[in-house]
């Protein structure tokens, strides 16, 4: 009974953490002399209030979900990929190059090629830290963060120089952006809103990632390596290879997110000098969405929608109750901090429960069937 309550509590923990974050946000709103109920009503309205609002939420959720899918793979393989931002950028740059180069080809072919090259670009950008970790024991958290910095500078260089919009090149302003993609290369819209095919692709990929992780040899091995590299090696699995693959696939999904962002929303690349100027921090928020979804690809779908809604709704809220835009960032940050901390807390609790269960087991009759079923329920 207690164990069932425990697992229910664990499942609801991200929701509780989100509510707690919103409660803290409410206190801040009060300090700013804003009615929090009014503010949160505006937030809800902005995210889900109309078909347009809903579409915007889903548009924002799409890159989050794609990044989150990659995170599900890498975290399951016990590799921490913080390089989603850089991988998105490289994927986007490569995809944009495809769209600007092969202008004579049919639209469907260029879109396919572009999404594929986005996937590939991200894979390379994730694969490099993967190889460094697997064969040279370089900490992947550090290397992926550094790869982010390199990707940003590469983007800035390309968009100011080789890839700059020819019309901008002649102007004095020289806005660092590429030319706009041909209309036939845009991802098809799904409704008379900004909602595009990318959202559908992301959901389909979520199902594919689920199959990958639990129905294929590759997924089995990635999870095995993530859970216990010793036993994996013993079982004959080449551990380093699957460390690389986990990071590579993770990067690939982020790269795809970048490509989808260009072909579905922006139709060109433009930089303000920072990574988030292009990604909207989806490379980081995707991690939160994946954790929120318990690193499960299918649960990552609602998790991504929630964060998409927060992003879109917050804008409406800002306009409606006149709070500084920094507060929106704070609110997002609060949700991230609360959810990530709750996840860490959940793991510790689980560890303690396991430890005490072990303790009891070692000092009691081992083959007691009731004891096992009791523990199994946890």
């Amino acid at each position, binding site marked *: 009974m207690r164990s069932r309550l425990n697992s229910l509590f664990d499942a609801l923990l991200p929701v509780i953490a989100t509510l707690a974050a919103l409660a803290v946000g409410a206190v801040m709103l009060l300090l700013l002399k804003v009615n929090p109920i009014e503010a949160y009503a505006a937030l809800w309205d902005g995210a889900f209030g109309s078909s347009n609002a809903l579409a915007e939420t889903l548009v924002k959720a799409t890159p989050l979900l794609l990044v989150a899918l990659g995170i599900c793979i890498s975290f399951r393989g016990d590799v921490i990929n913080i390089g989603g931002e850089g991988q998105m950028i490289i994927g986007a740059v490569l995809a944009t190059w495809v769209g600007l180069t092969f202008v004579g080809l049919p639209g469907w072919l260029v879109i396919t090629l572009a999404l594929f090259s986005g996937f590939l670009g991200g894979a390379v950008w994730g694969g490099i830290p993967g190889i460094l970790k697997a064969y040279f024991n370089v900490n992947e958290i550090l290397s992926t963060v550094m790869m982010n910095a390199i990707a940003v500078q590469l983007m800035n260089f390309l968009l100011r120089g080789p890839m700059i919009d020819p019309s901008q090149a002649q102007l004095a302003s020289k806005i660092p952006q590429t030319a706009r993609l041909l209309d036939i290369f845009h991802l098809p819209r799904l409704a008379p809103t900004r909602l595009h095919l990318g959202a559908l692709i992301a959901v389909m990929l979520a199902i594919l990632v689920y199959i990958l992780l639990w129905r294929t*040899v590759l997924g089995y091995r990635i999870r095995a390596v993530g859970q216990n590299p010793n036993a994996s090696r013993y079982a004959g699995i080449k551990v380093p290879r699957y460390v690389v693959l986990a990071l590579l696939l993770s990067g690939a999904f982020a790269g795809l997110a970048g490509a989808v962002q260009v072909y579905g929303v922006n139709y060109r690349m433009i930089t303000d000098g920072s990574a988030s100027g292009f990604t909207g921090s989806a490379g980081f928020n995707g991690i939160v969405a994946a954790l929120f979804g318990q690193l499960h690809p299918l649960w990552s779908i609602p998790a991504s929608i929630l964060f998409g809604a927060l992003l879109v709704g917050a804008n409406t809220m800002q306009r409606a109750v006149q709070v500084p835009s920094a507060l929106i960032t704070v609110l997002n940050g609060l949700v991230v901090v609360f959810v990530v901390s709750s996840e860490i807390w959940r793991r510790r609790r689980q560890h303690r429960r396991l430890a005490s269960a072990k303790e009891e087991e070692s000092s009691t009759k081992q083959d007691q069937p*009731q004891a*096992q079923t009791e523990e199994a329920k946890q």
Partner: protein
Amino acid sequence: MTESRILPSGKTRIESLEMRGITKRFPGVLASDHVNFDVKTGEVHALLGENGAGKSTLMKILYGLYRPDEGEVLLDDKPVTISSPNDSINLGIGMIHQHFMLVPTLTVAENVALGLPSSRGVLTDLDHVSKRIVDLAKIYGLKIDPDAYVWQLSVGQQQRVEIIKALYRGASLLILDEPTAVLTPQEVDELFTIMNQMVRDGHALIFISHKLHEVVEISHRVTVLRDGRKIGTRPTSETTKQDLANWMVGREVGFIPDRGTQNMGEVRLSLDTIKCGSDRGTPGLRGVSFDVCSGEILGIAGVSGNGQRELAEAITGLRRVTSGKVYLEGQDITNLAPGDITDRMLSYIPEERMRDGMIKEFTIAENMVLREHHKQPYSRNGFLNLRGIAAHTDKLIQQFQVKTPSRDTHAKNLSGGNIQKVVLAREISRNPRVILAAQPTRGLDIGATEYVREQLIEQRNKGAAVMLVSEDLDEILALSDRIAVIYEGQVMDIVPREIATPQMLGLLMAGVHPEEGARVVK
């Protein structure tokens, strides 16, 4: 009683300790069910039982690590409350844990002083401590140098440091938790000498063990626990090993499994002067050679840490062989990838089953195919065949009597014995040509131990070549056809079981050839 009530250590002795009606419940389990237990000055009272019988629970209650749900503890007929190890130490109760609680980089004196207030306030008083250690060592006949670093000491010496530590803290009653598990036969004899001396001096000792011959040799009374209940207490002189074993298990126990006739065949596994490093960078194996044939069990005896782990890992490809060759059925498999060696039908039951042999977060089914998941019928074209895996798992669960709620239960929720059955099932069901079994029964209760041993013998009789690494001499003697003794990364000798005796193996395990040993004694 004419003798004084003061112990040689200067502490007042405990005349009697009694635990009455001790009951301790854990969720779903009654770990201790109205157990009565007592110990008197000048006796060794053995506590005997299988894993999970409630021995540890009872002693943890006495040492203040658990609080009982019911029952009381009486010290010299007065009720006492023990709510922490500090309380028990203050009452004169000491415990020698199975795993030593020593800091290897500190000296003996520093270890003894650790955690105690110094007589000089913020400054240390190690000279006082050293002097006291020397005094205690003289009184109890414990040879120990207070200035030696613990990492320099042998396991037996480290155990003496633990005993000194307890005596220094004024222990009158000592709980010894499986103290012989890590010792060579010679070291066991020395420990027993010390224990006898302590008993003569008026200490009370509680001796926890599941080795019957030791219980019979050292104890005055013996109490048997089973399933958290006390089966009975008797003077040791009025019992036999067979009685105690039957008490412990609750049924008739055959000690030495029927090994059947041996049909030794061709050489399956052959090692030619293998050398490799250890995790510490020191030499792990220093030129090991032997053959294992079809239809035989080669036992590898030795005190832990003499290269057994390195040996198993070098053969299975988990550790790099720096020189020498390993042949499997005549083919050179030296330094092949572990997967390639596995695929040549070499099975390995690893020593640390939870660390190496199992993935705790995986289900039983997923663990069952750890080795074969990439082959038909468990997968096809890169996709797992969940139905094939399930059918295989259900068959093995039944065949190997794994107690689990379902095949989708996570491995972490199984007991040690059932985990080992899963490993065994997985490794044996492949019909391997060679089986490496490292400490296959360590930590298992008698029932599970018997089962594992029977399975190994059955594999041998079916013609597999079995290499059994064990620190348990009884096990080695019960199962092996030939016995190789490993000491400091070298094989001291290989002897047929018919002529092997525990004394002879004990000397070899300590690095002494029996002939030399005889000469030294003369």
